[in-house]
């Protein structure tokens, strides 16, 4: 696998896995308005997936399509960060995760707009507008729930404590990132950490939440070394139609 293919899978799989997780709220969100908003977010992410994985398939040149990559790969082929595959649990954790990811995506996609690879720059520019709205909405909701009732505050605190050790993986540079930087496609992910920290500090402050004092990071998702047990269950649901009826179309 070339570094560019690997890089594109990382972008596409992040969008795909979070998009699917978000879509799990469809029809069961705590309020009709939130249900529609979450479905919109999920659709934005699946749309971004089509662009990233479509380009990945083209770069791979093995005759696979974006759909093949999404529906016919198994757990060990996925390159998303672990934070995005853990279960939604409650609405609080879902929105906290969305915020932690959005706060990364906005500076990251902003940087990718300057990519030497025109397709990467174009996909980033299109996705950025959606990510900015997602960040607006998720940060507002995190603040509202953190600064809400005792119950909502406790849930948001639990969500942050649970997810924070997963967040560092987004910035964990490896050899592929170095190769990608050298080819001018993207900067190192670690370069957007300062901006992420700044957004995190501002929003947690307004939400009356304390950033956990730990430097431990779960890892293995974006390298494909080790996923959580949850991804297999998620893929079983997500891929069941293509697995049961190969090539089915509508």
């Amino acid at each position: 696998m070339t570094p560019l293919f690997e890089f594109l899978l990382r972008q596409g799989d992040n969008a795909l896995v979070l998009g699917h997780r978000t879509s799990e709220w469809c029809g069961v969100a705590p309020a009709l308005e939130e249900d529609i908003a979450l479905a919109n977010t999920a659709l934005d992410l699946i749309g971004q997936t089509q662009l990233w994985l479509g380009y990945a398939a083209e770069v791979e040149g093995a005759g696979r399509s974006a759909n093949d990559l999404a529906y016919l790969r198994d757990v060990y082929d996925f390159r998303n960060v672990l934070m995005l595959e853990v279960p939604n649990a409650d609405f609080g954790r879902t929105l906290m995760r969305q915020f932690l990811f959005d706060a990364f995506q906005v500076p990251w996609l902003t940087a990718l707009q300057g990519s030497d690879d025109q397709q990467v720059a174009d996909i980033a520019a299109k996705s950025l507008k959606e990510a900015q709205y997602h960040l607006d909405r998720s940060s507002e909701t995190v603040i509202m729930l953190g600064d809400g009732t005792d119950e909502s505050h406790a849930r948001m605190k639990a969500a942050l404590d649970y997810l924070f050790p997963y967040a560092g993986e987004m910035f964990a540079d490896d050899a592929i990132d170095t190769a990608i930087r050298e080819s001018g496609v993207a900067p190192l992910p670690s370069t957007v950490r300062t901006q992420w920290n700044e957004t995190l500090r501002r929003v947690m402050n307004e939400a009356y939440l304390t950033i956990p004092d730990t430097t431990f990071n779960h890892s293995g998702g974006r390298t494909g070394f080790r996923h959580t047990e949850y991804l297999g269950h998620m893929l079983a649901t997500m891929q069941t139609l293509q697995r049961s009826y190969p090539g089915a179309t509508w």
Partner: protein
Amino acid sequence: MSREWPLWEVFIRGQHGMSHRHVGSLHAADAEHAIKNARDVYTRRNEGVSIWVVEAQDIAASSPSEKGPLYEPAKDKVYRHPTFYDIPDEVGKM
């Protein structure tokens, strides 16, 4: 205190519309939240370029039972309608 979010009325100005039109209502915690919800609920198909929200309880409304006294008197006063004039094209929409 009620645990339900208050009700907001939503007004959207469309791509070519001259004024905001009432499109429906929704629940939200505050005005900012109501605008975001309105964006997600009412502009998914590119309907609007501007959103207004107002809390439903802040709207003063006329009572349907006063229909007679309020509107009947205007019914037989046809001379109030400016239907006997030709409006020049240059004036545009009125």
